[in-house]
């Protein structure tokens, strides 16, 4: 040790030129966590799918009626066939398999209360019983639906060419009521869900962080006012607030859902960020920044924000999960995206009527996708929080 540098810490001497910052350290820790890597891969796969769908690379023609109504999924057909093979001896199953494969049914109002009775009757009477045709109920909305269908069909011209005969009898993931591919719908739904989830999460995070930072940093009257605002906001039951905003905004669509969720969801991050700012504003490093003449803005965003950004990131990640689920609920309740687009929630809404008829594939697809994404994202959020644990002070 030379006299010129009498205090050099030998431990600090050896080391790399540019030290890794918080984020690169957190990233390294994240990559060491197997669950985190696995869930990240799943999330990234979903994101790629959503991006691909956004650019029209996949599920572009989700709205075309490419198959017959309620075309069954063939992905499970072999399984199904194997199952019927075993029970073939009973005889009556044979025609049903055929019927399932090329089922052609008139457009019937979903809400037909007699439908199940009708089916039962038909089953009792056997195939093509004349009596059944006679009591067929005339769907009062048939015209409207037909028109609607036509309108929707115009979105992509392909549908015009697809005659009844050219429609696929079955699809890998099955088809819905209109004969639209469930796979394409669920992919398009992924796009909607992720778009809504991320956009709303970012909106809520920006609002909540800004308000929280201002309230926590300045304190006093400003804090009182914002807290008062927050309390009022929080005192209204969530669903009522959502419905009220939905009513005010009138228009249905992705943007509306993003606004609803973003405007109602900022409260939880507001509390967290406010508390962090209150804690940090009294820290010595912020006082030191004041001592060198840094402005309020500089102290708030150059100094304090990087120190709490991990909290914001974790909260943002939590929000994405929450908002994806919220969008599903909203769409399920009919306050979500409009009819011109598809989301997992609207698929579930449709599925609740189809399920009685035994058309389970739409429900299965939407549920499976949602469950996998939400689980993976939640696991990722947990891992992210662990990786960002600010132990390295």
């Amino acid at each position: 040790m030379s006299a010129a540098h009498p205090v050099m810490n030998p431990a600090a001497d050896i080391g790399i030129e540019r030290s890794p910052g918080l984020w690169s350290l957190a990233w390294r820790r994240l990559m060491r966590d197997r669950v985190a890597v696995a869930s990240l891969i799943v999330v990234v796969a979903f994101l790629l799918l959503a991006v691909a769908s956004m650019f029209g690379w996949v599920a572009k023609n989700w709205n075309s009626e490419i198959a017959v109504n309620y075309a069954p999924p063939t992905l499970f057909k072999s399984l199904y066939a194997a199952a019927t093979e075993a029970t073939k001896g009973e005889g009556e199953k044979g025609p049903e398999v055929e019927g399932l494969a090329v089922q052609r049914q008139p457009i019937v109002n979903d809400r037909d209360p007699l439908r199940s009775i009708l089916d039962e009757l038909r089953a009792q009477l056997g195939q093509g019983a004349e009596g059944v045709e006679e009591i067929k109920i005339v769907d009062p909305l048939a015209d409207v639906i037909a028109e609607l269908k036509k309108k929707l069909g115009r979105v992509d011209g392909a549908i015009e060419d697809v005659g009844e005969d050219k429609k696929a009898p079955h699809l890998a993931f099955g088809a819905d009521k209109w004969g639209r591919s469930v796979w394409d719908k669920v992919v398009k739904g992924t796009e909607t869900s992720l778009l809504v989830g991320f956009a709303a999460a970012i909106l809520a995070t920006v609002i909540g962080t800004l308000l929280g930072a201002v309230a926590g940093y300045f304190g006093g009257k400003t804090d009182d006012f914002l807290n008062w605002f927050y309390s009022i906001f929080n005192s209204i039951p969530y669903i009522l607030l959502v419905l009220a905003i939905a009513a005010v905004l009138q228009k249905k669509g992705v943007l509306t859902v993003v606004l609803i969720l973003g405007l109602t969801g900022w409260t939880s991050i507001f509390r967290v960020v406010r508390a962090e700012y209150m804690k940090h504003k009294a820290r010595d490093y912020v006082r030191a920044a004041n001592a060198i003449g840094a402005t309020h803005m500089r102290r708030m965003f150059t100094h304090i924000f990087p120190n709490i950004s991990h909290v914001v990131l974790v909260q943002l990640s939590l929000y994405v999960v929450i908002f994806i689920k919220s969008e599903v609920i909203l769409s399920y309740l009919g306050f979500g995206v409009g009819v011109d687009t598809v989301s997992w929630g609207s698929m579930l809404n449709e599925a609740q009527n189809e399920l009685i008829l035994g058309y389970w594939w739409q429900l299965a697809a939407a549920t499976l996708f949602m469950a996998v994404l939400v689980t993976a994202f939640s696991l990722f959020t947990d891992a992210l929080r662990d990786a960002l644990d600010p132990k390295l002070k």
Partner: protein
Amino acid sequence: MSKPLLSVRDLRVKFRIDRKNLFEALKGISFDVMPNETVALVGESGSGKSVAALAILGLLPKENAIIDPASVIEFGGRDLLKITPAEKRALRGSEISMIFQEPMSSLNPVFTVGYQIGEVLREHKGMTGTAAEQRAVELLREVGIPEPELRIRYYPHQMSGGQQQRVMIAMAIACEPKLLIADEPTTALDVTIQKQILDLIAELQKKHGMSVLFITHDLAVVGDIADRVVVMRHGEIREQGETRAVFANPADSYTQALLACRPVVDSRPKRLPVIDDFMAGRGHVMRSETRTRGVSESDPVVLEVKNLCKDFYAREGLFGKKTFHAVKNVSFKLRKGKTLGLVGESGSGKTTVGLTLMRLHEATSGEAWFDGKNILALSEREFLPYKKRIQIIFQNPYASLNPRMTVGQIIMEPLIVHGEGGDAQSRAKLVFELLAKVGLPEMSFYKYPHEFSGGQRQRIAIARCLTMRPDILICDESVSALDVSVQAQVLNLLQDLQDEFGLSYIFISHDLAVVKYMSDEVMVMNQGEVVEHADSDTLYASPKDPYTKKLLDSIPRGIPGAAAHA
């Protein structure tokens, strides 16, 4: 007294840092504690002294601490490393007990102190309600808490730091242990309280005939209390022996350095020797050059403070306000190139004076004349150009640097804020110059604060202040959190900078020896008021105010041999 009560043999402890790396905290240490004896374990941070104490109590974290199987800790004929956890638990609190550094965080805030003392008795002595309570009262009386019958109903926050530490001691001696381990029990306390606590421990040790293992970084304290001393560094024992013998004639160069690098009140060397000086054999020479201090009327005044007052308000009831006078009518003149020392115990208002002058708090009334302006009356915008000329170095170097910025960014920031220093290139050049000035390697530029030790961080904070070429530097307990050897280095650095740039310092500290070493003038504060203000030599030689006398009497003077090295 031939058989030792506690016998530590070849204790090796390793910590697992991550999958690959192990850190050797203790590299085979051996020492004995005889019955009825006080042994001091002395060392700076990282020396492993606390690890040794935790190993004895069996409180090392099981997940990552590895104790070498060959190590032996024998206590009363049993190897503490071999007994079962249940036996260990029975031993802790009854035969071996411990006092920690921070009494506030060691006491449970939701239980009364009486309950907490009683808990030890219920646990180990099987006492019940009233008997335990009576014993708790006795114990509180024994540790010198007034009105113990009343105080057992108190919660920890209702007591002062010194009283809390007394409660901790009462808990520790509740079962009349054979061995009391005191881990830095006075570090967090004021100097006058420190003396009382040390006296209390010494008294109890004699009365109960117990042994005390006293862990500290402060050699002066050791001299007052310990029969024998064990000096540790980097997990090894450098020297052990009778306290008097070690202090009078330290054999190891590290012990010599530790004894010499702490400023003492009787002499003032030009520079404090640091450990490297001793390793190079220069230490003794440095002690002999002395520096004279003091101010004369002809020295130009840079800052004149007149009747500075600062009140704090606490809300009371619905409309009431309770006023607390933190600083009352403080006036002083700071002269160019001189140091004004500000001493006092916690709550004396000395830190508030510094923060108010920086306008980190707004003053209630008073004036501070700097460069022809009353800086306390300026608006925020008008004050900005003056702000950079008065700078502050905070106490805790771990908290005062933004952990998310690199050292380069931290030091460059004042230049960016004030729009000075030209482009990024010339700013970076200036930063490298400053790093060299404060004795940090160039590669520090890209590192984050957490990669540095406390002393190095304080250097970074000093470098940040220097970018603005301040006239006045306020050092608010700036060396209090540092180890003695590092403290000497930082004090030397501050002294060098004063000599080079003619800086004026306001040096705030509770450590009277350090203030004596650094200051030309000293102001003693008590409860917001200045009780005495004089040239430092005059004040230390002949204190006039009774409070100053009391403060000076409390300084541990446990290093009788230190002067002999001069």
